[in-house]
């Protein structure tokens, strides 16, 4: 456990010691800030059915920055260590491979959470200025940020897997982006063809992040989504572990 904390501390601090985390934080807040402004100003156009939280987490600005985060957050995790050779130091220290995988994943998750945390300030500011709740109930906040965290877990673990496969950060980033996009846009496939059955449609809607977000940001939790993300994260981390072990054998 102590080894895990040591590894985690290094992962997180190295992100903040390099400009990477700060650059990401700056541009993410710039985009989401604009997004928040647009959401609030839309209230001026008349009565609306959706709350500020719902509209904030369902715009192109939000989803676009969300999708772009994953390749950027995960591409260096293993690839960088392979390229500089520090992986050799890491894997000859008395540390289990599983600890390395879990610490790197957790480090990325901490960073990811730290990037989204400041967005909570928007809703605080909204409340402070208007004395109105930005969401219908506390459950909506919990649902929104909970889903954000769950989706983050899955997509970050996909990124971990891609990074563990190559020593080139750019290759890892491209692979991650493609895989994340694949899972993300399956929900949209239903729009492409009118002939898909209701079962397929049901599956697509259940696992479409956009539909999930619509549900969760109203405070409606779907356990199928929760289980899906947890299981897929575990699977990706297991595959990452396997890939790291295979790398030893290849030499």
């Amino acid at each position, binding site marked *: 456990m102590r*080894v895990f904390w040591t590894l985690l501390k290094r992962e997180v601090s190295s992100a903040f010691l390099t400009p990477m985390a700060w650059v990401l934080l700056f541009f993410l807040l710039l985009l989401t800030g604009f997004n928040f402004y647009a959401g609030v100003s839309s209230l001026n156009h008349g009565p609306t059915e959706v709350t500020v939280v719902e509209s904030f987490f369902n715009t192109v600005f939000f989803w676009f920055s969300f999708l772009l985060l994953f390749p950027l957050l995960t591409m260096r995790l293993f690839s960088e260590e392979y390229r*500089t*050779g520090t992986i*050799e*130091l890491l894997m*000859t220290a*008395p540390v289990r491979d599983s600890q390395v995988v879990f610490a790197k994943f957790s480090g990325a998750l901490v960073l990811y959470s730290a990037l989204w945390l400041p967005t909570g300030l928007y809703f605080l500011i909204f409340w402070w200025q208007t004395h109105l709740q930005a969401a219908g109930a506390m459950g909506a906040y919990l649902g929104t940020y909970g889903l954000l965290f769950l989706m983050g877990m899955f997509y970050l673990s996909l990124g971990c897997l891609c990074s563990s496969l190559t020593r080139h950060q750019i290759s890892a980033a491209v692979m991650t982006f493609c895989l994340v996009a694949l899972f993300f846009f399956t929900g949209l496939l239903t729009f492409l063809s009118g002939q898909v059955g209701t079962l397929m449609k049901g599956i697509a809607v259940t696992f479409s992040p956009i539909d999930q977000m619509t549900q969760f940001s109203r405070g409606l939790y779907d356990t199928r989504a929760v289980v899906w993300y947890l299981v897929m994260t575990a699977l990706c981390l297991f595959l990452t572990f396997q890939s790291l072990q295979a790398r030893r*054998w290849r030499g």
Partner: protein
Amino acid sequence: MITVQGLTKSYGTADAIRDLSFSVDQGEVVGFLGPNGAGKSTTMKILSGYLPADSGEVRIAGFDIFSDSLKARSRIGYLPENVPLYPEMRVGEYLAYRASLKGVRSRRIREKVEDAVQLCGLRNVQKQLVGTLSKGYRQRVGLADALVNEPDILILDEPTIGLDPNQIREVRALIKGLASRHTILLSSHILSEVEATCSRILIINKGRIVATGTPTELRQRTSVPLSRTIRLEILTESSSAALRELNSLPYISKATTLTESEGWVTYEISPRGEDPRLLLYEEAVRRGWKLRELSTREVPLEEIFSSFVPASPDQSATELQSLGNQPGAMS
């Protein structure tokens, strides 16, 4: 401390090492010597637990490096070739991180890092970013990392490669200083280095051990014809007469003229049996030769090395030659 039995490892179809067996006892400093590509690094990567072997067994302080890997690894300090480090960390920070990773207790980390910093002469760069260090300091940080948890065994892959002569001398002195507390296995393709630091030498070529022993033993075992030659420089009226007389002496198998200038003649003499220098001195006195030099020349390790490792086409003669001319050879 280290026992290696029948170790074999291949990359694809190319064998890196074949059926390697050797052992290193506690307190020994063993040099792993071989031309580039002989399998030194592969062996060290297997010993340090980074690569699994195809077959064979490695025991580190009694623990199998494969099945009991964590216990074995915690007893090793490993310095990989080219010393990979995290450039964004500060030296002190990095060493503390490594100490913690290697299981040093939290309240002892500061003290251990201090010791390693002191030992490796890193005091004045302790707060510097690793990425800004010179090659020599990087090497020392790597060494400090290897010994920060005071492991029983140090495995150092080419510890002085890429350093300037002064740095080489410093790192060698450092390694010698460590020898009293650690068992050390170091690899090198530089003979003078191994001779300067090691008590025993393993010569490896094309993945096999071709010779092992102390530098003296290797000299005795070599197929280089004479292990010792004598130089004699005298002032004489007739160099050819002196040469004839030398060749007629019973304890000399062969004498040849090396140089001749202003009456001073230098002969190279191959003795028969024991060291004949005293007899030669008496002979010179008897014949009235004025004597300026009478010395023996040890066969350099370079020649011994080439006798064990024939130069292959891909390993050019110039490289072997340069082995002897490495800076710091006199230290």
